[in-house]
């Protein structure tokens, strides 16, 4: 670590066009699934769908569009830390809300 120039990292990993387009198509497909399940079915299916499909979509954007898959573990750790903090804040707040 320090001020040494890390040449290999300087240009970053290049995500191929093909990968980007495939991910985009996946995102559109998942959106369609989400909409279909939400409008055609009762809340019983739509809430689980929301809870699985939406994070999956977000994950695809993080991992491929935002290069997170190719970054050092520190960046993955950072995202987990931030989302974890948010979940903790919401969770602890519900320690209050659920019991009043």
């Amino acid at each position, binding site marked *: 670590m320090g001020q040494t120039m890390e040449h290999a990292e300087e240009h970053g990993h290049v995500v191929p066009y093909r990968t980007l*387009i495939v*991910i985009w198509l996946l995102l559109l497909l998942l959106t369609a699934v989400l909409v279909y399940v939400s409008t055609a079915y009762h809340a019983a299916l739509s809430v689980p769908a929301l809870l699985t499909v939406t994070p999956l979509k977000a994950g695809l954007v*993080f991992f491929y569009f935002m290069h997170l898959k190719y970054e050092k573990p520190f960046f993955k750790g950072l995202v987990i830390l931030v989302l974890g903090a*948010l979940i903790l*804040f919401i969770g602890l707040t*519900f320690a209050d809300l659920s019991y009043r």
Partner: protein
Amino acid sequence: MSSVPVPVHPIHKDYQGAKLGMWLFLSTEILLFGGLFLLYSAYRARYPLDFHTGGQHLDTFIGIANTVILLTSSLAVAIAVTAMQKGNRRLTMICLGATIVFALMFLVNKYFEWMAEIHRGIYPNGPALLKLPDGEKIFYGLYYCMTGLHGLHVLAGAAALAITLDFVRRHKITRSDFSKLENVGLYWHLVDVVWIFLLPLLYLAA
């Protein structure tokens, strides 16, 4: 202690450092919207039926259309980054331009969507809103706050993209120094991620 001689004015660009800085900034954005998500969770748990009603009322078509627009804009800016890494400056500029166009389309849609609700009297302190049950008042309050804050970020992102496009045009972003482009791209993707969550929470809240 021994010393290592270095030039007095080292001009160095720290690609990883700039990326770290942008990811830290994105962390703050996640927590900024996170506060609104906390409120949404709390109020949804409290007013489940009213949130369902409100979600049904909102224009799902525009919500889906805007989702497709943003997802495609993310593709465009991601292609722009890859293109720059491969030295294809022209493709970079086209894609950046496309991203900006998508951003503006999103904002125009948002404008019409809001205008429609406002015409129906459903806006903060609006006549129709005040007659609604409490849970729906809260739902629409959150709707305006969340889409409003998000819209401001779309606008800011569009401006940043335009500046970036100009940097590419003037060769201030190059194949060997494209950190600014990548970081603006990261910002834009986060704007997309927020919307990925807003769509089901607001429009598909069945």
